[in-house]
């Protein structure tokens, strides 16, 4: 099996050039063989004979390079004859001869500077289109939801419970751990700063307000966007790639009704519940820190906390949860349905879903803050 490495050399015999090649001309040695071919010095000669009888093994790359060598002599105007090709190698030479020299069309090269501008323009237009399409999708989901509420029996209850389990129940441990730690951090930072002003006791108010109004719900929403929103996109996107979505539509099944609605409703149910957990555990984390680091016993802390953590603060935080849930669910499902082509598209859309839903959640949070400020709560 082991043949000698390929070689090619040129010699002159009674006024004629003879180029002989031998050994193994295969893709494994193609880099060296290409250099050997480039090193040939085609002189002006009327006739050139290629003696290929010493070839031990060739493959398509080898034949391609041998023919490239012959072409170099032809370009000087010589008559080239390939001789001594073993019978079993002949079909390969014919195959390559029939298929070479068809370069793919060059991709148009563009100025890198204008290319940047072009990409910027394209992505701006695409972004605007995406947002309008997202609004259209919200309308579609709303219509479907309205249609379902007329005939609640069509609603997929099994799918809903399944989604609640995955997006809600299974997320509880990580949410608890995260908000407990955040509670500790806030209480600690607050206590250090406020102690200098002599208002250490206000740490508890600060903890209660930030946790209940903002951080509990916001952190939970961000965690769920990363955890469930991305899963929605990946699941639906993979179904799109496998043409399962097209199959559903062909069978008269509505993907929005079957796939999208249960996921969104599951989040609308799960996110407020998770937020309650987050609020309670966040306060507990803060309490633990306060009791350890402040001169306060548990009873004192609890009394103060009871005064600070009022129902309005809690409600203000909680009403945001369903809105955030809708944003995460809609964006996740929408980007999943937008997957087209292959597996890489699933990855692109999943990333986009997470980034977009977190961004929109924060925008919505700002809008809520302005609204509540105007309402004076």
């Amino acid at each position, binding site marked *: 099996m082991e043949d000698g490495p390929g070689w090619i050399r040129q010699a002159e015999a009674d006024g004629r050039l003879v180029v002989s090649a031998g050994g193994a001309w295969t893709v494994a040695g193609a880099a060296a063989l290409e250099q050997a071919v480039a090193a040939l010095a085609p002189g002006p000669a009327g006739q050139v004979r290629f003696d290929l009888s010493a070839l031990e093994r060739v493959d398509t790359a080898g034949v*391609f390079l041998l023919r490239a060598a012959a072409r170099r002599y032809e370009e000087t105007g010589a008559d080239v004859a390939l001789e001594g090709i073993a019978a079993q190698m002949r079909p390969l030479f014919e195959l390559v001869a029939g298929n070479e020299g068809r*370069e793919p069309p060059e991709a148009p090269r563009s100025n890198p500077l204008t290319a940047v501008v072009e990409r910027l323009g394209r992505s701006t237009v695409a972004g605007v289109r995406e947002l309008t399409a997202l609004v259209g999708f919200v309308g579609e989901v709303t219509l479907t939801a309205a249609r379902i509420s007329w005939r609640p029996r069509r609603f997929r209850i099994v799918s809903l419970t399944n989604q609640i389990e995955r997006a809600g129940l299974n997320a509880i441990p990580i949410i608890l751990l995260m908000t407990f730690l955040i509670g500790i951090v806030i209480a600690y930072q607050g206590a250090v700063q406020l102690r200098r002003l002599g208002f250490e006791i206000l740490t508890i108010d600060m903890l209660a307000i930030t946790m209940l109004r903002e951080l509990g719900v916001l952190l939970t929403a961000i965690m769920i966007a990363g955890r469930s929103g991305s899963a929605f996109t990946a699941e639906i996107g993979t179904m799109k790639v496998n043409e399962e979505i097209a199959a559903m539509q062909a069978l008269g099944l509505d993907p929005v009704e079957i796939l999208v609605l249960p996921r969104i409703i599951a989040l609308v149910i799960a996110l407020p519940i998770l937020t309650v957990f987050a609020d309670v555990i966040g306060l507990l984390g803060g309490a633990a820190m306060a009791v350890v680091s402040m001169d306060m016993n548990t009873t004192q802390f609890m009394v103060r906390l009871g005064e600070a953590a009022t129902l309005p603060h809690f409600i203000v935080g909680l009403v945001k949860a369903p809105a955030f849930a809708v944003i995460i669910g809609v964006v996740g499902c929408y980007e999943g349905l937008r997957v087209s*082509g*292959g597996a*890489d598209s699933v990855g692109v859309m999943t990333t986009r879903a997470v980034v977009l839903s977190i961004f929109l959640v924060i925008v919505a949070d700002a809008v809520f803050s302005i609204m509540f400020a105007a309402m004076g709560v």
Partner: protein
Amino acid sequence: MAGEAVIRIRGLRNQFGRQVVHDGLDLDVLRGEVLGVVGGSGSGKSVLMLTILGLNRPSAGAVELLGVDVLRGDAEARAAAQTRCGVLFQDGALFSSLTVTENVQAPMREHLRLPAPLMDELAALKIAMVGLPPDAGPKYPGELSGGMRKRAGLARALSLDPEVVFLDEPTAGLDPIGAAGFDELIRDLQRSLGLTVVMVTHDLDSLAAICDRIAVLVDKKVRVGTMADHMRDRHPWIQEYFHGPRARAAFAAADMASGEGS
């Protein structure tokens, strides 16, 4: 060279949980032949192919590929044997984030150090060899039709000029004209490149048209023989397979074609 076994399987046993797929399977594939592999759905054709390639570890048995023990040989020898094989997976299994040209070049990049212009020219050659138009090179797999994806997958399988090529249902999902064209392509390339081909197929036309021998997977083993051998086999599944109406039509067509040729 004919007669030398490039693949030698002895006493192969494949088991998933309690489901035994292969048991005591023996098979020799000879250099330069086109071996068709047929069998009912779920009879373990794809698993057999993966096992030969060393991508599936069997529960027992010995598998030798190009003289290398696939299960117990040293890693380097096994990798070397693998690069001398090309695989066309069901549906092509092209890398969707790469263009067709880049897909064809992927094995070269991994195993060889070739200058970029040479790789471009070799990829263009391979793409032309499988009958794709030149403008297919810069396209992504998602932009190709099913038949073109199969051809692109074949071009990638041939990237390193392998000695053995495995094809998993290459003509499934193609229209009859496309399938016949693909059969012809495989036959032509097999002759020109001196390939050994192992082809899983359900396409009776392909079997009749291009396979030298046929391996039938029944009862967790293979029965290998020519078309004529299988026609005489008394096994009920083989009877049904080779004597059904579709089989008769396919073989009649193949007989006519070979009659005209000779």
